[in-house]
Structures are given as C-alpha cells and as structure tokens.
C-alpha cells in the first residue's frame, strides 16, 4: 500500500462528495475551454474574413498631404511626391521579419490618359498580385495574365464601349479585354487595368509606382509590428494600416475575449472554492483518521500528500471531463452563438492547458486543507489521549 492508495480508497469511500467537486471543476474548466475555443475561432474567422476582404496595409510615398479616396478607404498623401515609390520597393516588403504574414503585395501606378478618344483612368497592376488583394472582384471573363491583356471596370467598359474579347490600343499595341469587373463602388469601376510595365510605359513613368497595397494574413498577425517593420525597410514611404478594419477586428475580438476571460476567471474561482470547501469538509470529517495516521507514524508531509493527492485526482478528472465537455459545447454552440462557419478544430494544446489549469487549481484548493490536516495535533485528533 502506498500513500496514493489511501487517498484513492478515501475518494471511493466519499465518492458522492468528490463527484460533486469533480462536477464543479468540470463545469469551470468546460466553461473556460468553450469560451476560449469560441474566442479563438472567432478571431480566426475574423482574420480570414479580413484576408478575404483584401489589403489591410497601404504604402504611399512620403509626401505633402493630400487626401485621396481609393477603394472606398481613406488613404493619405498620394499626390505631391517627395520621393516616388519604385517597383523594387514591392519586393523589399517581403524582406521584413514578419514576411510569413504577408499574403499579397500589389503595387500599382495610377494615372490618366487618352484612350480610344476618351479621357480614361489607367491603373497598372501586377494581375496575379492584384487578384490576391481583390478577392471580391466579380469578373465577366477572367483575370488578365500578361501584358497583352487588359481588364475594364464596368463604367470604363461602357464609356469606351468595349466588352470581353474586344481590343484596346495601349502604348502602341493592341491589348485584348479579357474581363470586365462588375460594379463594386470603387475607383476600379472607372479604370482600365493593365500590366504595371505597360502602364509605366504609357504614362511615361518607368519603374514608378503610385502605391502598394499589402494584404497581411490576419490570423494572429501583429499588424502594428508589420507596419513598423515596413516603415523601417521603406524609410521614404508612408506605411498606414487600414485602421477601420483593424480597429473593428480588434474591438470585436477583444470584447469577446475580455468577456470570455472574465467569465472564465469567475467560474474557475468558484470551482476552486468548491474544491477548497469539499477538501476542508473532508479533512474535518476525517479528523480521527488523520489522528490515526499521525499516531502510527505518518509525517506531516505524508498526511499533506494524501490530502493533496485527493484534490489533484479530483481536479485531474474534472479537468479532462471539462476539456472534453467544453470542446463538445463549443462545437455545438459555435454556429449559433458566434456565427462560426467552420467547425472548431480539436486542440490538444488547449486540452493540456485545461488539465494543467485544473491541477493548479487543485493544488490551490487542496493546499490549505492539506496544511490543516498536516498540522493537526494527533493527540487532539484522537481526542482520546
């Protein structure tokens, strides 16, 4: 027989009381696991939504301020350039420490020129990169792939009377219209989108870009850090997060996270108090037993270990049950409570954290009763002597 066998026998003897404590711990841990799972899943989904939404960082030349609206978002300092952005600046962005969080870098040159006898807005882009930051585009046709192809905004298509399959002469060469972008309320509606190199040639601005849009993967992306890193590698540029989107994301996630953590803390506190009171009651009920143990030669530390083992065993079982129940609850309630569209993945690290938390709470709730038991005077405990 070992000390744990005594604790185990005691747990079995008082199973009703300990099942109640176990249920309290499981409820506490389960609530925490469910809330944290939902919070994480919401954060991930908001991040994914933002990724789908497009660019969340805009880079413009450092210039005297002149407000311009692009893409429905306020962007500062586009016009009076002090030092223009270069095409190579777009590649420099991918050298920042958080480069793994950069999903798309879309440089563009914006200008106006005569096309087909009309005054037209020309935007030169890298089509593949542009597709990465304009995932919401609905195209009649397809995304252009090379310098011989162009795309038209819906208004530009009407004013130029060009449709998919037609050709436009640009920079001295005919270019095929391969797609017309459905109206989206942005500047793109009025634009002729062509390859960046072609636009630079047509507008007489070789190797120059007006702005660079960056799409950062928002799942856990440190966007403020990334802005700072980009500003460091591009000292001549102004790097600005699209604050509205970032702030909205942060607000939503932070509010829920704070709520989740506050509720978790309260529930865990209640769980710890239940464990504490259960163990205190158990120690009080077992005064005589503890006196026997002390009388037959158990050291204080050995008595404390028996009591602590019981508390930890209850909390271990409660932690595992709570983790599984919390995970199941978050999966079941996620779509209804948090409008989650993807199932919450099974997370072993969260399980490990839940069990560790339960054990820490068990140690916290069991320590005082264990110390009380250990300090019990054996003569007093036996009362007889």
């Amino acid at each position, binding site marked *: *027989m*070992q*000390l744990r*066998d*005594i604790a185990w*026998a*005691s747990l*079995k*003897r008082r199973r009703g009381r300990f099942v109640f404590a176990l249920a309290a711990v499981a409820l506490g841990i389960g609530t925490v696991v469910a809330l944290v799972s939902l919070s994480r899943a919401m954060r991930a989904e908001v991040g994914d939504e933002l990724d789908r939404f497009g660019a969340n960082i805009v880079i413009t030349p450092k210039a005297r301020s002149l407000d311009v609206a692009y893409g429905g978002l306020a962007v500062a300092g586009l016009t009076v350039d002090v030092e223009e952005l270069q095409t190579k600046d777009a590649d420099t962005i991918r050298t920042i420490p958080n480069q793994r969080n950069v999903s798309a870098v879309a440089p563009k040159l914006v200008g106006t020129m005569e096309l087909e006898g009309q005054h037209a807005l020309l935007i030169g882009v890298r089509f593949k990169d542009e597709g990465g930051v304009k995932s919401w585009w609905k195209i009649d046709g397809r995304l252009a792939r090379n310098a011989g192809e162009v795309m038209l905004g819906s208004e530009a298509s009407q004013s130029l009377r060009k449709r998919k399959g037609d050709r436009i002469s640009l920079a001295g060469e005919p270019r095929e219209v391969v797609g017309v972008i459905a109206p989206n309320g942005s500047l793109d509606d009025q634009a002729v989108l062509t390859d960046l190199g072609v636009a630079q040639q047509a507008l007489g601005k070789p190797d120059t870009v007006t702005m660079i849009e960056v799409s950062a993967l928002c799942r856990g992306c440190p966007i403020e850090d990334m802005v700072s890193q980009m500003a460091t590698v591009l000292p001549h540029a102004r790097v600005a997060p699209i604050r509205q989107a970032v702030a909205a994301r942060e607000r939503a996630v932070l509010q829920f996270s704070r709520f989740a953590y506050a509720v978790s803390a309260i529930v865990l506190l209640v769980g710890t108090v239940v464990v504490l009171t259960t163990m205190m009651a158990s120690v009080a009920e077992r005064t*005589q*037993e503890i*006196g*026997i*143990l*002390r*009388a*037959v*030669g*158990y*050291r*204080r*530390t*050995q008595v404390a270990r028996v009591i602590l083992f019981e508390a930890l065993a209850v909390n271990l079982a409660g932690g595992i049950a709570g983790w599984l129940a919390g995970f199941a609850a978050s999966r079941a309630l996620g779509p209804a409570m948090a409008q989650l569209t993807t199932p919450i993945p099974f997370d072993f690290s969260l399980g490990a954290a839940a069990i560790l938390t339960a054990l820490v709470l068990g140690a916290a709730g069991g320590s005082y009763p264990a110390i009380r038991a250990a300090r019990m*005077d*054996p*003569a007093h405990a*036996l009362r*007889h*002597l």
Partner: protein
Amino acid sequence: MSLVELHAVSKIYNHSVAPVCALADATLQIAEREFVALMGPSGSGKSTILSILGAMNPPTSGRVTVDGLGIYSLSVERLADFRREYLGFVFQQLFLVPYLTALENVMLPLAAAGIANKRQREMANDALSRVGLDDKTHRLPADLSGGEQQRVAIARAIVNAPPLLLADEPTGCLDSRTGRDIIDLFHRLRDDGLTVFLVTHDAAVAARADRIVHVQDGRVLDGVVAADSLSA
C-alpha cells in the same frame, strides 16, 4: 535496564489562562520486556502519561527517554518517525480506518515507512496471523466483531516490531472473555520480547500485569504494587 524513563515530568494545561496541573513531578521507569499496568481514577493523569509516552504531548517540564533517546528534543517530523519505529498504539476506541480492509489497516505504518508493497503484505499477514486473524484479512472493520477489530488494532501496533506497546483501556469495550483473550495476547507478545504499558480501570486486567503503577491527582504514587502479590 530501563526502556522508558519519565523523570520529574509535569504537565500543565492552559498554562497562561487557567492552569490545570494534569501531572506533577512524575517519575517512572519501565524495564525492557516488562508488562506494566497504570491504574487510577478518571482525571488522575493516566491519559496524560500515555500521550506523553506516545510522543504526542510534550510535557511542561521534565525529561522523557525511550531507549535512551530524549524524545521531546526531536523535531515534529522525527517524532513521527519515532512513533513509527518505537511505538505501537492500541486504543479503547479501535480507531481503524473504516474504508480499509483489516490487511490494509495493518499495512498503514508500513506504508508510512516506504516499505515495498509485497513486503508490506507479508509483514501484515504475519501480524494478523499472530493475533489469530489470518482468515479475515480482507474484511472491512464493520464486518468484524469488537474483539476481532481489537486484534486488528493490535496487529497494526506490532506489525513493524516496535519495542514498546502502549494500550489505553484495550479491553474497555469488550466482553470479559474477549478481554481475557486480548490480555493473553499481550502476555504472548511480552514473551516474544515486547514491552507493554497498559492503562486500565479494571483491577482484574491490571492484576495480570507484571507491575501496577497507581496515579492519583496527577501524581505517580510511590507505592508500586507487584502484580504477582496482588494476584496471589
């Protein structure tokens, strides 16, 4: 040679508030392999002497030695070790752990000593065999008679072969025949080398000891009566 010595031991309870002198200047010697009975009326100080000898109640003054060891100079944890290594306790109230079997109750002191499980079982089975309970090792205390429970308690007290057995009214809750059997058992244990110190109200039980010590109003009386002369 004395195994146990109490020298000028006093015990005052509630020292600072309302002092009660439970024991005054008590001196007592118990030899190895001696069977001593301590008699006295209620409140005379018997239990105080027993708890002091049991390393559970430090005296207010005086010196207590067991096997030459001044026990109250030990730390709290070493006192626990001392109880495990030197003492066996038998109480009037049986004080068995109700959710452990007879065998497990006997194994309790061995678990505290960190003895391997297999060896614990061997020793506990041997102790239960010595008290005549080898056929009821896996019963819970509630399934045993009062006499059988007392035998389990005695087996627990002797399982780790301590030199001194302390017994407090061990026959108090038993019928006279079972009580006689328990005292017979104490004699056999004494014959095997154990020193027995027994507290009792029962003159018939005390008469079977080698020596009777009387205590009254917290004083160990000088008149030590040889049991043999009483029974004769």
